[in-house]
């Protein structure tokens, strides 16, 4: 059976979208693993129902594998899980009201579960992370300098990096790279030519926009939740 990953992020408490995606995935062929790349919570909606569902999946739900995202980091900061630090960046950029809304959107009983979430997963030669291993808020897009993308791949020692922070959907391949390095030290001169093997950075999207990844063929499919019903409407077919 085809091995396929579903990568979602940025639900921000939206249980309806999560249910829609679960429904989609039931109709998607293959052996599917569901990864939730953070931002399960946010300040706009009460997030308790979604969190409860992620922690206690329904019997016919695909088991979600969750990591924490930027909004999880903010609530952990503000709730004292990071020593003396607080969510100052959020406070400065969005104001006190948003900080309060975020705190009110999540019941305190979920905080320990959030705090125990992993920063990322490494599966095969792929890194699955909310931003990058440099920072959970690292906003990688198609316009990020390739050198920066390469650095983020190197830090995780992976060939493919799935990232969610930018909310964009993209699949950028670094097809070739070369760089000459010459080091002079007290023992003499050392020359080296470094090449990059093929690597890729994939933006998985957010909310209703999510990504299906075919592990065997390295193909991505950018999907909008509810596509199965849309497909019928406009006759747009998906080819796997």
């Amino acid at each position, binding site marked *: 059976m085809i091995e396929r990953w579903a990568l979602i992020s940025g639900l921000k408490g939206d249980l309806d979208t999560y249910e829609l995606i679960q429904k989609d995935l039931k109709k998607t062929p293959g052996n599917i693993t569901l990864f939730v790349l953070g931002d399960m919570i946010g300040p706009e909606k009460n997030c308790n129902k979604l969190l409860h569902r992620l922690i206690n999946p329904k019997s016919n739900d695909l088991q979600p594998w969750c990591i924490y995202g930027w909004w999880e980091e903010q609530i952990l900061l503000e709730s004292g899980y990071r020593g003396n630090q607080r969510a100052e960046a959020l406070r400065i950029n969005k104001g006190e009201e948003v900080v309060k809304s975020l705190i009110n959107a999540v019941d305190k009983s979920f905080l320990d579960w959030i705090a125990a979430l992993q920063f990322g997963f490494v599966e095969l030669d792929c890194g699955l992370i909310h931003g990058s291993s*440099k920072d959970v808020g690292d906003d990688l897009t*198609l316009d990020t*300098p*390739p*050198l*920066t993308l*390469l*650095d983020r791949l*190197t*830090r995780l020692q992976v060939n493919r990096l799935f990232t969610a922070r930018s909310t964009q959907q*993209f*699949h*950028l*391949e*670094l*097809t*070739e*790279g*070369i*760089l*000459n*390095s*010459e*080091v*002079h*030290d*007290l023992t003499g001169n*050392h020359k*080296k030519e*470094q090449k*990059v093997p093929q690597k*890729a950075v994939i933006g998985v999207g957010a909310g209703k926009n999510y990504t299906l990844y075919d592990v065997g063929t390295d*193909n*991505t*499919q*950018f999907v909008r939740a509810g596509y199965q019903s849309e497909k019928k409407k406009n006759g747009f077919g998906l080819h796997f």
Partner: protein
Amino acid sequence: MNQAVISCLHANLPAVEAVLKDIELQGITNITCLGDLVGYGPQPNEVIELIKEKKIATCQGCWDEDVVDGLDACDCSYPSQIAERRGHFAHQWTTGKLTKENKDFLANLPYSIRKDKCLFVHGSPNSQHEYLLPDMDAFAALERVENAKAEILFCGHTHQPYIRELANGSIAVKVKNSGSKDIQKKEMNLPMRRIVNAGSVGEPRHGGTKATYVVYNDITNDVKIREVEYDIELTCKAIINAGLPPIFAWRLKNGFEFAERAEDASHVCER
């Protein structure tokens, strides 16, 4: 004009005096220091006062930061638990010795100093705790210089002096699955950049016992690594007399390379 860049003085006064003398003998007056004025060595106040007296522009090093913040150096940068304990002990010792004035001085040092196309930092532009080792992934090394918008990046922290030139680079990218029919391809050339590590004045780890620093000529772009002899015995005695771990003296005397350093060059302290 020639300028000198020194780093990692580590409270070793005889070494600092010898290096400053060597710089003076060459008629160089422009000196930049990349931090780690204290830690390991027995004369933290004396070294800070000498730097202040000479008005040497200085960035904050990892030890300077940790001593001030009351934090212990990130344990992940120690190769063993014994090394970690020794490091912590040296921190406590140094914190206890430093005057309030000198602590304030360390606390107010900048993370980086920029002069035209040169950027001076202790570890890397990302962190005082990141090691830019000479064999670090070339693309990642270039990224550090590029992201800092510099042409030459001066750093220390590894205690190994080197000059690394990164040239003739290119990267090709392809947008897959963009929804449009044409495959979007792009190839870009990478700029030539250099990383210069100033080594260490007070705690060398290059395999020899001499203090090291670099001289940079901003007209010819030439960089030279200088090695300077100093009275090692004097420092070693002071280490023992101060009650600091004798291994710090032994290391200076034998010029052994192994010391407290991260195994992984791309490692950044997440503390």
